[in-house]
């Protein structure tokens, strides 16, 4: 069924197809006549059956049959025998249609429709399926239908799992069988069915099973797909909270961060509280997360997800703590305690309930009086040139703020699970190395890189520490480096992965993180912390390791190969961002910026915006075309005719309150565009080194 070259039809075949076409047309004409007059006689149904046998792809034909069946069923009332005979006839028609083409959606659907009525025997179905799966073991229609039938017949998952085993033994290049195996196992593991518990035991066995396929024929992808699924199952962490800002144990001077509050005017004693999780979660609210402060604090917190995915979950959640206007002891530090998952309401995308509570605490120092925050008219332009940055001498208090990681408290049970899973992965790593010692194999290398990363995550989780230097990083980076050379078509993917791992390595601990921290020359031009994280010229293509960077307010990513800034939206404290000299090719790639409400200074000069007439990212990112949830139509009216050209720039910048923007060096940045920007951003003071007013 697979890998057969298409042959040009012979003359005879062409003739036959002409004859068939003529015959089909005449039957079709007859059929439409019956259809339009709602005729459901025996003769009409026979014509339809003949038509469908010749051309099972004819959906109208199937729909007509459904109408006819309904018509006859009504007439039959509740006479079991005649109902059964009507439906049996349908099954027969489907069967002969499937004999013509067993990949016909319409025919399979019709069969399901009939069986769902519950009058027909399902005994024949598995027999039929066996026949079809013998013809083509991978046929996903048959596998789909198999899942339907087994659910209808209540066949236990264990039995079906054995069936996939048998099919795989017959030929292990069977994606459908491996896939069905993963579906069944997910259920069996979740329900902890006898023999499928503990999970680690099952995973070990499955790894061993698929390993045979990988070693026998590493060029066959189906086994690797299953292996990747298994890896995913093994590496899933049940603990969720990764980091927070303010970090655990830190001391924060609230007045330093007043500028970041959503509304500047009335309240100046607000402090953002950011929680970053290991994966997207939902259900963060004042009942699942309790925040207690010694001082008066509004305990009715509103949590906002940053960048919500399809199911309404987000990795990063934000709220603002509001302190009462008059602190009792101005000079004193007040303790804020945060407890997460007090009640089991937090749900992750993997379906885990976060039942292990995490606790953290930090102290705040409240300003004595309501100091109105004022930007002042004389604020200077931020100049990103290197000479303005000096390697910094950090105060110990700042150090506490940088280290945003949450010390994890892991229950003994989980710890053991992580240890076992880390052991499983360690074994897989050994086998993967063995395979690679035998032969050069791209997917083997990629898998090894993934395994090493997974091992890293698991072993650090089992130790309960996150900030340590991991020895494998160097090897992972080498692997991705090799892959970039070995497999040029997927260069960009490897490059992205390389960037993520590289960032992980470099930002892994305080010591190496500090190497990238610089002090901006003139701290007065910034409202507070003038510490800049400088990741320039590292040939990054993507930004990662966001959970370690929640504290960053000034970020220099210039002179890299960045195409996407996905994830950057989590840096809710960010006010100055340098993205100059990168490979950003459209405004839609800057979409995360829309969520950075504190952003004041942005440099996107010398990118490729406007260079590519077709924006391939447009449909990946939020836009008025892809989804409309937070797009306000009336906003479009404002800017007049330029809107139609610059709508994407508008969508990014209209919500921002930028003070300084550089766009020069992008093909799009002509005079007209700059005028548009001036109009769009009235508060802007500098555009491309030019002071505006």
């Amino acid at each position: 069924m697979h890998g057969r070259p298409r042959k040009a039809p012979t003359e005879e075949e062409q003739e036959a197809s002409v004859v068939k076409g003529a015959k089909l047309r005449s039957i079709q004409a007859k059929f439409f006549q019956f259809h339009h007059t709602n005729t459901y006689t025996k003769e009409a149904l026979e014509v339809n059956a003949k038509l469908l046998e010749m051309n099972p792809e004819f959906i109208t034909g199937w729909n007509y049959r459904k109408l006819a069946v309904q018509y006859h069923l009504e007439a039959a009332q509740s006479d079991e025998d005649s109902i059964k005979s009507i439906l049996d006839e349908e099954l027969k028609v489907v069967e002969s249609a499937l004999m013509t083409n067993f990949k016909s959606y319409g025919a399979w659907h019709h069969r399901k429709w009939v069986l769902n009525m519950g009058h027909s025997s399902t005994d024949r179905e598995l027999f039929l399926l066996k026949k079809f799966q013998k013809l083509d073991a991978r046929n996903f229609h048959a596998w789909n239908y198999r899942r339907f039938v087994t659910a209808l017949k209540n066949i236990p998952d264990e039995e079906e799992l054995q069936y996939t085993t048998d099919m795989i033994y017959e030929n292990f290049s069977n994606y459908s069988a491996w896939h069905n195996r993963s579906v069944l196992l997910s259920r069996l593991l979740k329900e902890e069915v006898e023999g499928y518990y503990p999970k680690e035991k099952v995973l070990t066995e499955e790894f061993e099973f698929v390993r045979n396929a990988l070693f026998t024929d590493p060029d066959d992808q189906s086994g690797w797909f299953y292996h990747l699924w298994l890896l995913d199952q093994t590496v899933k962490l049940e603990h969720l909270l990764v980091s927070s800002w303010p970090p655990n144990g830190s001391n924060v001077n609230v007045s330093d961060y007043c500028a970041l509050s959503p509304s500047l005017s009335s309240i100046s004693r607000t402090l953002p509280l950011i929680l970053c999780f290991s994966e997207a979660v939902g259900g963060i609210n004042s009942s699942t997360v309790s925040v207690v402060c010694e001082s008066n604090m509004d305990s009715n917190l509103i949590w906002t997800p940053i960048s919500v995915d399809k199911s309404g979950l987000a990795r990063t959640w934000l709220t603002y703590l509001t302190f009462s206007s008059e602190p009792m002891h101005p000079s004193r530090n007040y303790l804020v305690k945060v407890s997460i998952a007090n009640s089991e309401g937090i749900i992750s995308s993997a379906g885990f309930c976060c039942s292990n509570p995490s606790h953290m605490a930090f102290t705040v120092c409240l300003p004595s009086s309501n100091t109105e925050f004022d930007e002042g008219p004389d604020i200077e332009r931020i100049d990103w040139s290197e000479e303005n940055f000096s390697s910094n001498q950090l105060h110990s208090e700042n150090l506490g703020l940088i280290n945003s990681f949450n010390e994890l408290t892991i229950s003994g049970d989980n710890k053991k699970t992580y240890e076992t899973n880390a052991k499983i992965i360690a074994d897989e790593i050994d086998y993967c190395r063995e395979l690679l010692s035998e032969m050069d194999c791209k997917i083997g290398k990629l898998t090894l890189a993934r395994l090493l990363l997974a091992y890293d995550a698991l072993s650090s989780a089992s130790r309960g520490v996150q900030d340590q230097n991991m020895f494998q990083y160097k090897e992972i980076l080498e692997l991705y480096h090799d892959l970039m050379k070995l497999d040029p078509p997927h260069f960009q993917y490897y490059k992205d992965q390389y960037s993520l791992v590289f960032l992980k390595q470099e930002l892994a601990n305080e010591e190496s993180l500090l190497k990238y921290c610089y002090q901006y020359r003139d701290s007065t031009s910034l409202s507070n912390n003038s510490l800049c994280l400088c990741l320039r010229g590292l040939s990054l293509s993507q930004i990662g390791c966001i959970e370690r960077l929640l504290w960053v307010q000034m970020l220099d990513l210039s002179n890299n190969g960045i195409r996407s800034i996905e994830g950057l939206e989590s840096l809710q404290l960010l006010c100055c961002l340098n993205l100059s000299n990168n490979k950003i090719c459209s405004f839609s790639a800057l979409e995360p910026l829309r969520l950075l409400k504190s952003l004041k200074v942005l440099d996107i000069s010398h990118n490729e915006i406007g260079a590519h007439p077709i924006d391939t990212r447009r449909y990946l990112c939020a836009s008025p075309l892809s989804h409309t949830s937070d797009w306000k139509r009336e906003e479009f009216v404002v800017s007049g005719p330029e809107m139609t050209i610059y709508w994407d720039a508008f969508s990014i910048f209209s919500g921002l309150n930028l003070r300084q923007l550089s766009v020069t060096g992008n093909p799009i940045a002509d005079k007209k565009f700059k005028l548009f920007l001036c109009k769009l951003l009235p508060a802007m003071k500098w555009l491309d080194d030019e002071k505006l007013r």
Partner: protein
Amino acid sequence: MTYMAAEEDEGPPRIEPTSFDLIVVGTGLPESIIAAAAASAGKTVLQINPDPYYHSPFASLSPKDLISFLHLHSATTSDHDYTDFRTVDSPTDQTTDSSFNILPLSTRPLYSSVEVHVYSPEKVLDDSLQKEFNLDLAGPRVLFCADPMVDLIVDVDVQNCMSFMSVDTSYCIYDECQKGKGGGLLWNSVPGSRNAIFRDRSLSLKEKNQLMRFFKLLQAHYHSNSKSSTTTSNEEDDENNSSMKITPEDLETPFVEFLTCKIRLSPKLTSIILYAITMADYEQDNVEACKKDIVKTKVGIDRLMLYHKSVGRFRGATGAMLYPIYGQGELAHFFCRRAAIMGGISITQMPVVGLLVDKDVGNYKGVKLVTGQELFSHHLILAPTFVIPPGLTTPSVSPQDVYYDFVQQDAREKVVRGICITDNSFKPDVANCLVFYTPKSLCPDQMTSVRIFQLSSNVRACPSGMFVVYLSTICGDVVQGKRSINAAKEALFSTSVSGNSEDNSRDPLRENTVVKVKPTLLWSTLYIQELIMGGFDCVSSTPMPDGNLQYSHVVDAALKLFQKMYPDDEFFPKKMPWWNEVVENGACLSEG
């Protein structure tokens, strides 16, 4: 049509016509193939069965018949049987035409040292059971799905009358260091296909990888060869990427060297490939022992490719090998029937007493039957049991064609064959399987591999509940060959009827499925078969079954004889190409 030899009243039956293009004396497999081929090519053919048993020495017989056949043709008794015919029925009513000399036709012994052991006579020798057995005289022997024999059947078997069963699995037992550990030997199943490698439980992951890569290399080699000169540059590149290539120089090296040094297969895999897939006889890494039988890489690769093409050729077949239901005799029978369908005449149980030769020149003219009738033909094919009488002149044949060596084997070699009837299978759940004992795995002086083939009642080899096991090995030294076969019997079976007293710690069937009790022998025989080769002349003779597991040489010998006789005729003209197509798509042939 079959000519009925019995006619009423009028004394001995007469055969009409009396002149043929070809007379074939014997109904063994090569004789039958030639008869069918000649008949298909439009020749007039007479096939005479001189023996009380059909298809000997390729027959499938009951235990009793088998033993009496062996005795009939073995060294001690053979001579007088046929001399009887000759002397007693000396022709009386012969034509008085004196233009021919009659050269008496004598036979030679085919078998020697026949041993029979009956352990449970009631289970095997009961008369009512006899027809439920089909014991092959020339066992063990199997068909590879892609071998020339199967091709021939596919071409010829228009009515689809042959049915086959797949051989479930094969095992290779080789002498490894394990012997020291537990005193037993490992049963390695032979992984001949991609999925068999995947399923295999005894190979290490590394070995799986090595083996599969080797198979892929072979496929690539085969494809690049079959595409011959017109390889596109793209594909060249692909092959260059896989870095390994089989060079013409490689093809001339010993296969064992190629496998171990170039492919770097583990000793275990090398043994499996050498002895269980390419079916080498002599110990390949022992230069001394295998002077005669060193498998070259070219040959090894060809045999491996045959194996690969066999796997999956027919939809119903699960492995590479097939076995005809009702036994090997069916194959010869099939071709006899084919000859008859195509117009050949066959007569049964009609001894031939002499050859008619031209008085003046001394060349062959015809045969004289025991009834005294004289029949004439251009060509004569004789079964290997007959000695071509000296004094026959060969007019038109160039000397190098005389006695063409069809089967290139050492003339002193013989085959030791054994047949055992047992009460159980080697392995539970396995009915029909092959076992290969590599050289020296049974005893230190085992020079050649011992091949073993177990069959169950599902191929009608025996009544249900029993198993038939064939054993064979080639040997130069008869004593040593018998010792190997006996060692294999000892390793596999117990002779005590109770079967429980066996010492299980020395059980060879250790690997995951351990048979607690070895199968018990009910009956067994052991005999030595001569390896008589065929030859071509005006009177040609067919070879005895060779020591191999497959039929390639049989087909080859038949084809060569046919082509020598009829250089301008096609060997089984393929009249129905549509039929081929149906079979290639796996529609039929095999039942199972």
